[in-house]
């Protein structure tokens, strides 16, 4: 008899996926097929919608095509057009500028409010409820409301600026248009980060914070060494999801600024949308879709890596 360390097989007793439903050799082919029967409809639907849709975008990007009519195979010409065309390059630049401004605004605002809400005072529940309202407001309504609020001729913000003695700028015009777009995006998007970050904050055991307090660690050091490292995975996730959200944004620029003035707020997805449905350049639009898709793939990879690391 050989007695080895008792922990050697500790993980074995309850394996991650106990073979609960395949208990004996009597388990028939039917039992073995059951999981596949359960996942098949979901897989088929996703393949039919997302999978086939993506495949189609790739295929059409190689053709000169209008709605529903593939004309000529043009290889990578559509992509060359994207690269060569200064307008499209402008769209891409504007898109990155927008993502770079809107995402930190959303996440930063969300983080700040999550920290403020993470204490048990009276009214914090009420504040939380009120602060989530913008998030349940659709992008269309967000754009319509802000378009009205920021209206230079009859909006309240212009009036407020006037009252405090600032020049009445056309907030939806010139370089202010991008600022307004970012503000509206932040308004619509911060609550998502806030909710997730708040949930994450509330997972920090109260005792840890008390211990830090007893040990005389300053609030700043506590945040720096305890709170922030704990929040990091969630921050990463909301940043990635937020980036994806902004990278695919059509509604806000379409309704708030119409992509203008000029093309100053014409994000790539909006341009894509217009090429496809206003100008019927299906091939070019598909190529743009492939470009947007590629950006998404990068972000998705980052997301999966971070989820994986969090699990490990």
């Amino acid at each position, binding site marked *: 008899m050989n007695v080895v360390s008792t922990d050697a097989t500790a993980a074995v*007793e309850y394996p991650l996926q106990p073979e609960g439903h395949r208990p*004996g050799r009597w388990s028939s082919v039917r039992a073995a097929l059951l999981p596949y029967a359960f996942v098949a409809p979901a897989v088929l639907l996703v393949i039919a919608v997302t999978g086939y849709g993506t495949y189609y975008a790739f295929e059409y990007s190689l053709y000169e095509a209008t709605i529903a009519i593939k004309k000529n195979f043009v290889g990578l010409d559509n992509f060359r057009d994207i690269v060569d065309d200064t307008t499209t390059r402008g769209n891409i630049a504007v898109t990155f500028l927008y993502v770079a401004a809107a995402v930190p605004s959303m996440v930063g605002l969300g983080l700040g409010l999550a920290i403020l809400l993470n204490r048990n005072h009276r009214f914090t529940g009420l504040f939380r409820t009120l602060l989530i309202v913008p998030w349940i407001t659709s992008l269309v309504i967000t754009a319509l409301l802000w378009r009205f609020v920021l209206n230079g001729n009859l909006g309240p913000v212009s009036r407020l600026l006037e009252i405090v003695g600032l020049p009445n700028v056309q907030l939806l015009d010139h370089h202010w248009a991008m600022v307004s777009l970012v503000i509206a995006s932040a308004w619509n998007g911060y609550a998502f980060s806030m909710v997730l970050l708040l949930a994450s904050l509330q997972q920090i055991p109260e005792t840890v914070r008390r211990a830090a307090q007893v040990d005389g660690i300053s609030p700043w050091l506590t945040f720096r060494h305890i709170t922030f490292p704990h929040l990091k995975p969630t921050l990463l996730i909301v940043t990635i999801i937020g980036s994806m959200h902004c990278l695919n944004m059509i509604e806000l620029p379409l309704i708030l600024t119409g992509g203008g003035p000029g093309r100053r707020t014409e994000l790539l997805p909006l341009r894509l949308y217009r090429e496809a449905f206003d100008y019927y350049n299906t091939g070019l639009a598909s190529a743009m879709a492939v470009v947007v898709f590629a950006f998404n793939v990068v972000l998705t990879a980052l997301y999966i890596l971070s989820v994986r690391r969090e699990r490990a």
Partner: protein
Amino acid sequence: MAEIGIDNVAKTFGSKTALRGVNLTIADGEFFSLLGPSGCGKSTLLNIICGLEAPSGGRIFIGGKDVTDVPPKHRGIAMVFQDYALYPHMTVRGNLELPLKASKESRAHIDRKVREVSTVLAINEMLDSYPRQLSGGQRQRVALGRALVRSPKVFLMDEPLSNLDARLRIQMRSELRLLKERLGATVIYVTHDQAEAMTLSDRLAVMSAGELQQVGTPIHLYSHPGNQFVASFLGDIGINMMDGIVEGGGSRGVRIDDAGPVLTLDASFDGIVGRLKKDAPVRVGVRPEHVQLHRTSVPGAAEGTVVLCEQLGSEQHVHVRMGKYTVVARVAATADFRLQQTVFVTFAAGALRLFDKATTVALHAAADTVAA
């Protein structure tokens, strides 16, 4: 007849081996415990007997019938789970009825069984409550009840008491044993708590690393452990273990390491003294109740210093420092020892247990057969 045969049962999960060739026979009507630390394979073995997991090799017999490929519901068994596994969305009645409904019993039979069982377990007051409304002890009874309604020949219990607080656990322990006497069924009971296994079982098997270490009655395993693992695992306070050298060559001396005392093997070792190798390294085990403390020197005693006294009310545990070892003695609660006091230590006759240092097997295992 519900004799259970386990024939060379093995189980691997991927590259990990949970059970290696276990052979065991459990008699009809026996209360049998599988005892071991977590990860030793005892729950896996229980799940295999139950039919929740398929063995990688070997056969399972219940009542002489090979049930290895029979689904759990047709094995004539019932199982009680550690977390009770009560269906939270069903009332107590619903929980009790489910096994009978699943086997399509008649309404009248179901009602009669539920009434019967709930009376036996004194849960008839709470039939319409939901599990979350019950206390831990009540949930435990419902879990037992759900096993009872099917009148199984064999009960399998997977640490059924470990979620209860200490006092309730001891109370339920006695109830469980009384219930078993009443039903006369075979019970296989998995636990990591040696006190439960000792008090409840007719026989028990100590397991470690997927293997049976020793099988036998509680008292046999306690007093004649077949190896060092069994010796250490049984007993509410651990057995004292020291390294030593057997003088051998016909001598009865055992030198404890680090200039410790020289012990003499008494008559219980007669059978093996002649076969002891010269200067063989051994582990020497002595149960605390066999450690005797004297205030004045006696022949063959070793000198030590009292370093800790633990008063339990019913008895006292005195820790004595002897060289590099601290030996624990179980003495009367009234005995008066003070810290730093010098005491003289002897071991009771027949108390020494020797284990081969390399193999950890008991040196007198040859005399006492392992299986009882």
